[in-house]
């Protein structure tokens, strides 16, 4: 994992995107890892009984996967200081080998000192599944960028 590059970060800087495939297997793995055993995440008949179109992914699986865009970029996940998402739409996962693909993208939306706020988008079937998703990371050094006085900004060695 490469070190965080502080130079050149501007509002609007795009992070490398990520596509993730959610299959029933992944949902079961996540259920066990997260101890979320709500049957809507593995049982078709239960999900339909409560009015869902089918088995849906855990919102927290989508949230956790979306943050990989940020932690891949920043390198050290310990730099994440806050993370918020709104769950706007369920991700339905079919019972087949392919599952469903969710595409994640992110860009810098605010910079203040060493704190960088990243806006994240998550798209499945051409629809947003997360709303107002924001992660804040502390890069540990003041980020020089156009909107700031850059003369005294420290440099990453």
């Amino acid at each position: 994992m490469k070190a965080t590059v502080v130079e050149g970060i501007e509002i609007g800087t795009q992070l490398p995107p990520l596509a993730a495939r959610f299959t029933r297997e992944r949902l079961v793995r996540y259920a066990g890892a997260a101890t979320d055993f709500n049957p809507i995440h593995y049982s078709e008949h239960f999900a339909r009984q409560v009015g869902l179109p089918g088995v849906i992914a855990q919102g927290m699986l989508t949230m956790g996967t979306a943050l990989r865009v940020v932690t891949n970029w920043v390198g050290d996940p310990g730099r994440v200081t806050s993370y918020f998402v709104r769950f706007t739409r369920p991700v339905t996962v079919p019972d087949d080998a392919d599952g469903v693909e969710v595409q994640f993208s992110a860009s810098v939306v605010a910079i203040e000192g060493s704190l960088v706020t990243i806006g994240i988008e998550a798209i499945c079937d051409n629809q947003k599944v997360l709303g107002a998703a924001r992660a804040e990371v502390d890069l540990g050094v003041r980020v020089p960028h156009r909107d700031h006085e850059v003369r005294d900004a420290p440099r990453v060695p």
Partner: protein
Amino acid sequence: MAITEAHAGRRYPACDPYQVSAAKIAEFAAALGDDNPRYRGESPIAPPTFATVISAPALAQLFGDPELELSLDRVVHADQRFSFIRPLRTGDVVIAALTIDKVRLRTGSEMVSATVNISSLDDEAICSSHATFLHARKTPA
């Protein structure tokens, strides 16, 4: 009686201490398909959303509180925030304690927001999980 706005401020006793282990971190990172090297090796830290594992028993207290008459079958997770003072690390022994922040009664449903504070046994605040749930009231049969 069901949940009301007057339940805002209700605090539940801290859950049993939870020890963060390298094995559980590895399992959680694998479930996210995340190969970040900080989740492996000598002294792994936990993925930020690992806090959900520690919050789970605290949320179970909320949804299991008979006075509130909440049912998980009728709950939708509306939003989620995590705030970190520092990452969770292998070997941390932490406790989770839940407080109901706000209850808003709406037509046919309640919006319940709650915070789970995660701290060390020495009372060092580590992180918090704040969630809003939409709970549909039972429709009369």
